Structures are given as structure tokens and as C-alpha cells.
């Protein structure tokens, strides 16, 4: 609608041609990006409903002659050994990610609030120290943490993962939340305190409700990070019944690498929870990035 209005207001045909040129370039580019993004995922789905035989044809069957949900049935069947493993890995991932998420929020909320509101000595130093954690790869911490976990007796437990995931999720969580708190007027809290609330009460009753979108965004971020994490889980866990999905899937299919439909079905199901979560809550996440990271 706005296009018509603008076109009408603009008298010169030549300029309209030029603007249209950019717009068309944008559209073509978007189509290209859509194909780049979507085709691999579509091919994953198509492969996952093929039989093992149909997947290993050349030239490939663009659409399977006999689509089948056998791979999914196998993965979700608790009677089957493959299904048992898959469901256990799924449960392990869910457990680790949920606990990590809850703990991250509990730890990040007060820290972010303090970084936003108080001016204690070393505040900036600590804040940047926390952010710097994001800079370092898992590998640097891997050997010492491997030893630390052995000392703490956490090898092969989900505790080792939760503890490590907590630290790698915290920096961005704190950063995002701080942006939210920065945008909540201090006067609101001051008013509450004049009315007799303690600082803690003001925090719980005024600040927390206002920062719910930020907390949701933080929670999504922690959950997705923990759900998708691979390298620590790969290193800390060796017992089959402890594995999380990203590692489990690998162990699982390295034995018979030809089962590509099964692998694609497993990849798909591993992606479903985080994609659904993200799509439902994405506006919080995008908004958190806008408020926390960019809008300064």
C-alpha cells in the first residue's frame, strides 16, 4: 500500500526505475538466500522418509517412490534398542538443558541487575571479565576441566555438563539482561522505596515483572546453547546411558554409516525442540538483542 502512495508522490519515472532496481535486486537476493537456507533442510526431510535402499540410488530419487516413516518409528520405539537409546539421549539432553537454563537465570538475573544499577569498584572490570569469557574456546578449558571433573568426581555425570554450560551461557545472558535493566527507569524503584519497600522488594515487585521478556530471551539462549553443545559432552561422557543427543547420535550412527535416512530423521528430531521453542519465543529474543546489544 505504501508503495502505491510513494510511487504516486514521486513524479520522476527515472528515479522510480532506479529504486525499483534496488528492490528487485533485494527480492532476487532473498530468493537466493531462501533457497540456500531451506534446500538443505528440505533434502534432510525428504531423505528421512526414504528407505535405506532408496536413499542410496544414483541418480537420487528426488521424491521417494515409496515414502515411509520407518526411520521415525524405529527411533521412537521403546521396544527397539535403537529407539531405547534415542529416547534416553533425548531425555538426557532435556534434563541437562532444563537444569542449566534454570540455574543460568537464577545466577544471571542478580548479576545483570548489579552491573546495571550499582557502581561498586571494579564493576566495569568484572563486567568485561565476564564478557571476555565468550572469547575463549572450549578447547582451552577442556584439559583442565577434564582433570577438575575427575577431582570433583563428576566425570560421566550430568553435573559436569551443567556446571560448564552454566559458565558459557552466563556472559551473554548477563549482557542481554543488563541491557534490559538499563532501560527500566531507576525512578520506578525509587518510588517503591519511598513507599517503604526494601531494595529487594522493589527488585522482585517492580524490576522482575518489567524484565520478563529479557529473562525469557536469556532462558531461550541458555536452553539452545545447552541443547546443542557437543565438545564437553563428547569429552566428559563415555557411558552410553549418560550421553546427550549431539554425542549420542554420532556414537549411534558411526557403527552403520549407511543408514542415512535414520541419521536425517534423528537430526530432524534433534532440531525440532529448539526450533519450535525459538519460533514461539523469537520476538523476545530479537527484542533482547535490540535492547541489550544494539540500542545504546
Amino acid at each position, binding site marked *: 500500500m505504501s508503495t502505491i502512495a510513494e510511487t504516486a508522490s514521486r513524479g520522476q519515472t527515472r528515479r522510480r526505475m532506479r529504486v525499483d532496481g534496488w528492490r528487485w535486486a533485494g527480492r532476487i537476493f532473498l530468493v537466493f538466500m531462501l533457497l540456500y537456507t531451506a534446500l538443505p533442510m528440505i533434502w534432510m526431510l525428504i531423505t528421512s522418509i526414504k528407505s535405506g535402499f532408496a536413499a542410496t540410488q544414483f541418480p*537420487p530419487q528426488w521424491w521417494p517412490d515409496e515414502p515411509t516413516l520407518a526411520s521415525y518409528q524405529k527411533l521412537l520405539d521403546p521396544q527397539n534398542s535403537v529407539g531405547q537409546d534415542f529416547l534416553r539421549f533425548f531425555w538426557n539432553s532435556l534434563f541437562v538443558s532444563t537444569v542449566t537454563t534454570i540455574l543460568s537465570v537464577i545466577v544471571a538475573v542478580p548479576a545483570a541487575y*548489579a552491573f546495571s544499577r550499582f557502581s561498586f569498584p571494579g564493576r566495569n572490570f568484572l563486567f568485561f571479565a565476564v564478557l571476555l569469557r565468550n572469547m575463549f574456546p572450549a*578447547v582451552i578449558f577442556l584439559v583442565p576441566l577434564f582433570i577438575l571433573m575427575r577431582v570433583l568426581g563428576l566425570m560421566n555425570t550430568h553435573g559436569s555438563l551443567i556446571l560448564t554450560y552454566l559458565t558459557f551461557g552466563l556472559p551473554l545472558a548477563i549482557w542481554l539482561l543488563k541491557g534490559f535493566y538499563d532501560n527500566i527507569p531507576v525512578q520506578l524503584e525509587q518510588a517503591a522505596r519511598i513507599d517503604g519497600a526494601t531494595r529487594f522488594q522493589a527488585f522482585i515487585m517492580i524490576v522482575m515483572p518489567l524484565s520478563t521478556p529479557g529473562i525469557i530471551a536469556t532462558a531461550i539462549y541458555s536452553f539452545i546453547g545447552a541443547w546443542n553443545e557437543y565438545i564437553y559432552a563428547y569429552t566428559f561422557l563415555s557411558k552410553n546411558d549418560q550421553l546427550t543427543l549431539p554425542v549420542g547420535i554420532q556414537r549411534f550412527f558411526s557403527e552403520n554409516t549407511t543408514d542415512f535416512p535414520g541419521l536425517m530423521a534423528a537430526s530432524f528430531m534433534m532440531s525440532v525442540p529448539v526450533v519450535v521453542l525459538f519460533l514461539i519465543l523469537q520476538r523476545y529474543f530479537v527484542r533482547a538483542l535490540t535492547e541489550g546489544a544494539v540500542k545504546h
Partner: protein
Amino acid sequence: MAPPVRSDEQGHATVTIVTGKAEARRRLQPGRSGTLRKIWEHRADYAYVLPAIAVMLMVIAYPIYYTIELSFFKTPPGLQLRDKTFIGFDNYTAILTSQVFWKVTWNTLIWTLGSTFISFVLGFATALALHRDFIGRGVLRAILIIPWVISAVAASYIWKWIYHSDFGIIGAVLVGLGLADRPPNFIDNVSTVLPSLIVVNIWREFPFAMIMMMAGLQTVPDQLLRAAKVDGASAWQRFWHVTFPHLRNVSVVTMLLLAVANFNSFIIPWIMTGGGPSNASHIWITHIYELAFGRQRWGVASAYSVLLFLILMTLGYFYVRALSGNERNEGSA
């Protein structure tokens, strides 16, 4: 590098309330410097950050210390670390004189710069193309973000299947179009493996740049763009002289975050190739991992980690500078 502590009204309020107490304390302990007194006055504030800092210290400070220590030792395999022997800088000289080191460093450079630059350009362009409202924009944006959300493990398997040397879809398309006699082998070939992996990495990463730049675009004042339009600026001029300068900080932060993430990436090369063939797709991180957990050369791996650490500290310096740039702007606004 100690940034001055900004005091806000809040801090002042607290100080005035406790002045009496602080005064008494100062008289009791005349030797205390101003900083220590301030720390004492704000002691309650630290309680809020303490849990975060405690977790960080345990899982970050200790490992960093330990890695540095280990890098000066010759270590036996099997992590029997009581038997380690001090060898000074031998691990470092061994690394810097090895052939593999330079090969891996070159790969890391190509991987990091290639992935970062292309992801950023594609993400930025997508953000610009999505900036104007149209029907289906929300759906399109959601679809474009999905690769960033799904696990890198899943992404690696999807693309491994796409690149498959016998049944891969790209090979089949190339043969179908008559561009190749038989399906090319993308990831078992020394010259194509790294670019092939970079394509996968970009697939996963451009959405991040897109989100960041979309957020940034919302902060560009509409009045400025309209004013430029009234003054007869073309679309390109408006972009180059109005939009782009506004996004400089966001761009720097985005590119640094991408660069760090790429420098640190592990999953895609590890799952798709394991660093092969003949180290053609080994980057620093996969190489360190293999040295440590594959060949159990903990000392050398630690020395590598320390070098990596130094490089990242340099990048980190610019990251903090870019971020404090943001903070300063906020302060003056």
C-alpha cells in the same frame, strides 16, 4: 586498562545514607585507602555478582592457570600428571618449528576470515532486503534464522549427506546438468574441502549477522533518511552516507563476535572431516583437540592453547574497545 568507575545517583544516595558509619570506620582504620573504603561501602552490592563470579572463577580462572602451567611440562600419556617434568619453552619451540603448525594456521586464517566476512555481508544484505515491510516477511525471517538455531552436529550431518561422494545431491545435480562426468568428491579432496566446510559454516552463521544488523537498522533515524531523500540522495547514497555510518558500532561488534566464534569453531570440521584429508581442514581448535585427546600430548596441546589465548586476548581487547564505544555513546546520549 582500568576504566574509571562511573558513579550514578544511586551510588550517591547510598553513600549519603551510610556516611556516619563510614566516617566512624575511617577513624578506626586510618590506614585504609579510598578504594578499599569504597569496596567496603559497596560490600552488599558484591553479593549480587558473587554467584556469577564464583562459578566463573572455578570453571575459568583455574583452568587458565592450569593450562599455562602444563604448557611448560613434558607430560606422560594417560594423564598421570604427577610424572610430568619441567622442560621450559620446549613445547613452544616444538610447535613453532613444526610444518603442521603453519599449515593449520593458514587454514585457520582462511576459515576465520572467509566465514566471518561472507557471513557478515550476506547477513547484512539480507537484513537490508528484509527491512522494508512486505507480506510474508515474518515467515521468511523465521525460516532464514532456523540454521542458526539447529545444532551444528545436525548441520554437519545434513551437509555431509549433501556432499556425499556417491549419493550426494550436489554431485547428482552437477552430473545431471552435464557439468561433471561423475559426482565430484568435495570433502575428500585437499583443495575443495576447506571451501566446502566454509559454505556449511556460513549457512549456519549468516542468520546471526542478519539478526544483529536488523536490530541495528531499527536504530537508524527515519527523519535523516527522509531528509536525505528530500535532498535528492539516491538509494545507494542514502545507504552509504546515512545508514552505514550509523551501523558502524554494530557492525564491528557483529564481526568480532563472528570472528571469535569462527576462530573457536570445532564441530563442523570435526564431524565432517576430522581435520583430513592430510590436515587440509584442520584448524587450530581441532588440531589442539587431536593433540590432547587423540595423541595425549597434553603439554604441547596446552602450549598451543596458551598461544591461542594470547591471540584471543588481542581480539578481546578490540571487542572490549568496541563495546565501551557503545557504552560511551550511551553515556553521552
